[in-house]
């Protein structure tokens, strides 16, 4: 064949090594500026949650009625205080622990269960598909809050149960997204090529179909993190979530809503932190999607 290149073995291996390095997931992510920005935002939020006891006085629930409704930088409170005179910066840092855990946990629970059900449903088709998707439709038919209330009543309050309740309510959405994509991918010629080779159903699902549906899942999951933070605050507001006075961003935001005219800083600060987290996860999610997609290469 005339196609033999003039490169010797060594320079070929050199090219191979360079390509391997360039295609390395971490290196690809590093080249994506917006993804790095998102990663930085997420890391910052995780850092304040982890190091909360060290960067604050460690008493998020200590009440000082005299110092209520202080605004920014008054009396050494960076973000001021809330209606009970609690230091808002401390509460934000401790609230990050709850909010991030619930958001990530619920998305992981809902994501994994939803993806597995969606894969099964889309791949098997027929009666399995019909049964699974009708159950999912049934779950979707409940208003989210109603469903969470039912689940929380059954499970009882507490962080793990909040994660489970929000996660379960998210399952049908993930399942729908994945199933739709699986229906497209499983008819692709490369899946037929796999069948000709005789690959197992498991290999087909997890080596061919799942990697080709993962982009949609990641985009949906990053969007979902934002709604999970808000959902947690809704549950806390109803007294079904994390027990008061434990701080979470959602509960601070809710509390700040009541004093929006007199002390707008409470809702503003917590809102901004939620915003930065959501944007951070979205940018990071887009970056991860691009890294996983071999066609996106700069």
């Amino acid at each position, binding site marked *: *064949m005339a*196609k*033999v*290149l003039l*490169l010797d*073995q060594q320079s*070929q*291996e050199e*090219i*191979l090594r360079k*390509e*391997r390095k360039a*295609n390395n997931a971490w290196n690809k992510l590093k080249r994506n500026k917006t993804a790095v920005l998102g990663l930085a935002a997420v890391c910052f939020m995780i850092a304040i949650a982890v190091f909360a006891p060290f960067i604050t006085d460690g008493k998020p629930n200590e009440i000082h009625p005299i110092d209520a409704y202080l605004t920014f930088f008054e009396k050494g409170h960076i973000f001021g205080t809330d209606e009970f005179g609690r230091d808002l910066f401390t509460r934000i840092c401790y609230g990050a622990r709850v909010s991030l855990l619930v958001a990530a946990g619920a998305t992981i629970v809902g994501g994994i269960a939803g993806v597995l059900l969606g894969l099964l449903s889309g791949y098997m088709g027929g009666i399995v598909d019909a049964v699974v998707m009708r159950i999912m439709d049934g779950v979707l038919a409940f208003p989210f809050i109603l469903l969470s209330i039912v689940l929380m009543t059954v499970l009882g309050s507490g962080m793990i149960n909040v994660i489970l309740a929000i996660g379960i309510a998210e399952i049908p959405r993930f399942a729908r997204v994945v199933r739709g994509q699986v229906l497209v991918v499983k008819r*692709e*010629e*490369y899946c*037929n*090529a*796999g*069948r*000709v*080779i*005789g*690959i*197992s159903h498991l*290999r087909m699902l997890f*080596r*061919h179909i799942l*990697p*080709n549906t993962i982009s949609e899942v990641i985009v949906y999951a990053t969007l979902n993190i934002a709604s999970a933070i808000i959902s947690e605050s809704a549950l806390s507001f109803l007294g079904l979530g994390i027990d008061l006075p434990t701080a979470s961003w959602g509960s601070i935001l809710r509390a700040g809503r009541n004093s929006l005219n007199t002390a707008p800083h409470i809702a503003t600060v917590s809102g901004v932190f939620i915003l930065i987290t959501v944007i951070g996860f979205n940018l990071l999610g887009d970056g991860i999607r691009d890294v*996983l*997609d*071999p*066609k996106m290469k700069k």
Partner: protein
Amino acid sequence: MSENPIILQIKNLSKDFEVKGKGLNGKKSVLHALKDISLDIREGEVLGIIGESGCGKSTLGRCLVGLHKPTGGDIFFEGKSILNRSSKERFELCKNIQMVFQDPYSSLDPRHTAADSVAEPMIVHKTVKGRQELEHKVLELFRQVGLDIQHMNRYPHEFSGGQRQRLNVARAISIQPKVVVCDEPVSALDVSIQAQVINLLKGLQKKYHLTYVFISHDLSVVKYVSDRIAIMYLGQIVELCNGGDIYKNPLHPYTKALLSAIPPESPEENKERITLEGEISSPIGDREGCPLAGRCPECMERCKKEVPSLLQYGEAGHQVACFLYENGIAQGGK
């Protein structure tokens, strides 16, 4: 070739598809993609299958590799039926019958690197032990199909059509199959690349003594690679002959028309053009008589009622399904 044992035997194979009618309560009708096809494929030969779009050649290829389940008839590999086998036996059969797909763009998983795609059959069938041997084997396959070590970590979209088809070939031969079904392997490629891929396929066939079922709509390609050629029309084989005979001595009116459609080599050459009247009739619904009956210039009354069967005529190995030659068979005393 005839002394070689039969490796793949197709017996009265039929494949029907259900077609939904228009509207909500549309009546279902049946599309006969393959109708009563019988064919023997001998070890080490290249059997070309040729026909126009929609005549069922790809369906036939897909039945052979198990992507379609035939609705009638049977396929025997080395004397044993390949249908209705347990999944384990089916899996073992995969090792022997492989396929090169028509579209090199969609038949490789976009998320797997070239090396992953080529290695997959060997991993699945556990024909190699350990990473090192696998890597060595993949590299050897890359060399065999004319790709380089530097291509190993690239993704399908970074390759040209020809290179992708080389990858498909490497994938197909990686587990040493006995039969390779090539479903229009070059029709999506440039003419210059076609020649390269065909030569590659030919070289591999000689080297490993492979049996090819070579499906194409391109007469010149089929003639170049095939030992025997089967001409298909509307789900049936109308003529079966040795590679050279198709030009020298075409028998069936459809084959004659097909050959006359090839442009003459010189503009001065006066070539008689046989044109078939009308459109190709629909494969949907039941049909009586010879598939070509409505368009055949030599159609007889009988052709509209009976289906001619594939019978020997003239030289050895030349079979034709046409009533015009039934008398000839009688005259020749077989």
